[in-house]
């Protein structure tokens, strides 16, 4: 058996190496991030001022739909799987993932799934235009013909995620180095273990709901059509039973990354490790019983409204515990502010703001006013952009020297951070205001009183987009060369990944380390 990688294209097609597959996942998600980002910029350009200027409403709806789908399934989820591939074996002292061939397969079906999804843009009738939540009957009886391709591509992406999750669980439960007990695992490993279980719990539900759509569209069933004895609201229940855990799937691994970075740059152990583990588990459990808070206005019985309101409010308790723990870790530390730390701190502040608006949205009577407005758009972008995107970015800067053996350019990293930070807040903060003032989401044109804040948001969006070009440039430069990184890279960071050379050799921990 060869000890190094194969040469040329074969290396990437046939690879079963966790580091190669991690790299593939990360580059793929980076590409999707730019594609989804361009769509966001089309949306923001159209919303720069009242009136229709750049795109027609039907295309606008395709853009909002594809932006959401690509960012969720193409950018955020594969990026976390890529980080898991790279880091989990190194963090637990394993030579590779437990199921390397399935690992290859679960990555390589992704490009095909997304090619199918993107191809709908060129079909007659256009791409899916019913929002990333694809509520029936807009997505069934009233959908463009391309909806069938959308359904199949969701099946493919779901299969990929389930395989990835199985692999991660198998790896973590079976391949830890001697002495690496569960409660000694780094939090990134813990949060991913819990995330993987969530994925296995809900991805089949997503597959189920799109299959029900397929039956309604092509085989004469009426799951979601009242005329045939079905119920459009059933769609929303099934979708959000997947959808709410899904948003936590996109944030739990982020908690793990932040819990690795903050202690390193505060030079102080993480505060409340075990409470962090329990809080993550509590959040994951609660995520399975709060789905209908996305549906407060569908006309549920009051008992349902009350249950989902109380359960949703409860989530803020374990989430609060996490924030308090990170702040306590920083408190009386000896802090420095390299790029990963800047992104991590911004994560805590902005994610907390997203958490606050989440708590506001949990209050059902107030939600009647917030629901489906730009306030919701502001809320979930505050949890997803600083939450998922900033944590992934922080993780990339943090581990890039380990992956490539080269230090990234710190100045450029800081420029990236400040541009992104300002751009993000300029884009999404004003959305709170227009939402409260009455602007519904998913509209291509709006009343005059919303013009000023929308203009600000559009300018912020382009700034944020420009910041990501700096990021791309910095990453490419670091891959090509640069100042050599030491084995430890940072000032005494904790974890097995820092005990191997930089760049990490193609095979690490062929003989397991001993963890005390």
């Amino acid at each position, binding site marked *: 058996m060869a000890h190094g990688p194969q040469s040329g294209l074969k290396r990437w097609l046939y690879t079963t190496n966790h580091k190669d597959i991690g790299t593939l996942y990360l580059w793929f998600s980076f590409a999707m991030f730019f594609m989804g980002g361009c769509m966001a910029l089309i949306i923001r350009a159209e919303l720069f001022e009242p009136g229709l200027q750049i795109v027609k409403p039907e295309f606008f709806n395709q853009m909002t739909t594809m932006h959401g789908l690509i960012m969720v399934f193409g950018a955020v989820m594969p990026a976390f799987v890529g980080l898991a591939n790279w880091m989990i074996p190194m963090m637990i002292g394993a030579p590779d993932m437990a199921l390397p061939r399935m690992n290859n397969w679960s990555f390589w079906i992704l490009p095909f799934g997304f090619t199918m999804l993107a191809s709908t843009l060129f079909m007659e009738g256009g791409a899916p235009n019913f929002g990333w939540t694809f*509520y029936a009957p807009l997505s069934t009886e009233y959908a463009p013909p391309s909806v069938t391709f959308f359904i199949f591509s969701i099946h493919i992406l779901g299969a990929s995620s389930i395989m990835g999750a199985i692999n991660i669980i198998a790896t973590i439960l079976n391949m830890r180095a001697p002495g690496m007990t569960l409660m000694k695992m780094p939090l990134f490993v813990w949060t991913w273990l819990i995330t993987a279980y969530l994925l296995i719990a809900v991805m089949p539900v997503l597959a189920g709901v799109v299959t029900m759509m397929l039956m309604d569209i092509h085989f004469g069933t009426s799951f979601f059509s009242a005329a045939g004895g079905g119920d*459009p609201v059933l769609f929303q229940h099934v979708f959000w039973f997947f959808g709410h855990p899904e948003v936590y799937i996109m944030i739990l691994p982020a908690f793990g990354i932040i819990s690795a970075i903050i202690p390193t740059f505060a030079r102080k152990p993480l505060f409340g490790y075990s409470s962090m583990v329990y809080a993550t588990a509590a959040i994951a459990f609660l995520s399975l019983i709060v789905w209908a808070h996305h549906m407060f206005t569908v006309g549920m019985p009051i008992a349902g409204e009350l249950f989902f309101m109380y359960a949703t409010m409860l989530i803020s308790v374990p989430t*609060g515990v996490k924030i308090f723990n990170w702040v306590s870790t920083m408190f009386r530390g000896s802090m420095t502010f390299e790029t990963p730390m800047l992104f991590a701190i911004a994560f805590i502040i902005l994610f907390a703001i997203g958490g606050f608006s989440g708590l506001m949205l949990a209050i059902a009577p107030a939600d009647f006013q917030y629901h489906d*407005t730009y306030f919701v758009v502001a809320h979930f972008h505050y949890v997803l952009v600083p939450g998922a995107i900033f944590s992934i970015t922080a993780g990339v800067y943090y581990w890039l020297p380990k992956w490539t053996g080269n230090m990234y350019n710190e100045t450029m990293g800081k420029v990236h951070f400040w541009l992104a930070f300002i751009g993000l807040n300029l884009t999404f903060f004003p959305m709170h*205001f227009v939402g409260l*003032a009455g602007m519904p989401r998913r509209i291509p044109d709006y009343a005059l009183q919303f013009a000023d804040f929308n203009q600000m948001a559009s300018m912020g969006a382009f700034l944020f987009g420009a910041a990501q070009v700096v990021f791309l440039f910095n990453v490419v430069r670091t891959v090509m060369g640069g100042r050599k990184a030491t084995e430890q890279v940072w000032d005494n960071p904790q974890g097995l990944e820092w005990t191997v050379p930089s760049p990490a050799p193609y095979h690490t921990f062929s003989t397991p380390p001993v963890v005390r």
Partner: protein
Amino acid sequence: MLRGFDRLFALLAASLSAQFVLAEEQAVERWGVNMPKGVTEVAQTTYELHMLIFWICVAIGVLVFGVMFYSMWRHRKSKGYKAAQFHESTAVELVWTIIPTAILILMAIPASKTLYDIYDTDKADLDIMITGYQWKWKYDYIGSDVTFFSNLSTPRTQINNEQPKNPNYLLEVDEPLVVPIKKKIRFLITANDVIHAWWVPDLAVKKDAIPGFINESWTRIEEPGIYRGQCAELCGKDHGFMPIVVKAVPQDEYNAWLDGRVASAVKMRELTGKTFTFDELFAQGEKVYNNVCAACHQPNGKGVPGVFPAIAGSKIATGPLNNHLNIVIAGSQVNPAMQAFGEQLSEVDIAAVITYQRNAFGNEMGDTVQPVDILNFKNKQ
């Protein structure tokens, strides 16, 4: 320095107070930053809940971010600060679990009370059925004959930036929903095609309109006025173009309006027997077309390839009249986006719009359809 600023401000405020207040009000309207207080009791309670939870969040935020910024300022390596090594405290963990839980319980009490209030749709003085269509609203005043559609009245030319925009751009309709003040009005909300949501912020009413199901909501408006809202659930192409306008008036004004409505409905029925000239039908047909058909089939009749078929040169509009009558009156069997307009439009309007479609866009069929033809066609079915 600070005192100087204070004095300057006091001076400014005193001398310009009148203009200042006015300017500020305009600024707030232009830069609306908060939820409207609304004109119903429920809206006001909702607003108070919103502000309460907002200030709770601000307080927690100040505390947490305060500690964080303090340690970022003080506990940095560049200042030579040596890191402490503590990393656990069960007592502290318990404190910051229990206190937030207590705050949440306190918050849940008023929220639940308001929710019960919103759900109490009993003992209404007036029932109005609201039906969402792609992309307009229909209002039925239950117990009277009054029923009408409410369409966006902002002209296309303003949307396409060919004309300056009205102050109520995209928030104006041809026929507002007229309701009496100080009466409990129950809304029965449903939809004809996809899911819509009926939302008027000033009334704090937002309820999904779901095809095949009827949702209930209610309001009691305290002050006369015009209150504007929009569809709040993505419902297809023109989701952004189906506003809601509620006109709340005193009871006697409402009664007069209702009588006028009933009378004009009777007059409309009489018109069905009348024979119109081609020009009358063509002119009325153009109006109806632009209001009802143009959203999909486009103002130029060319449609959108692959999505909405063209009228210009179409097999139906240039083929046998019966097929044309059938698709307009009964809707399409294959494409649900083509609704059954027999229930939505008057016989006069259907006759007019079919006449228009068969003679506009270069179709030149030369036939005229009278309201009586529509009635006969309907009766045969």
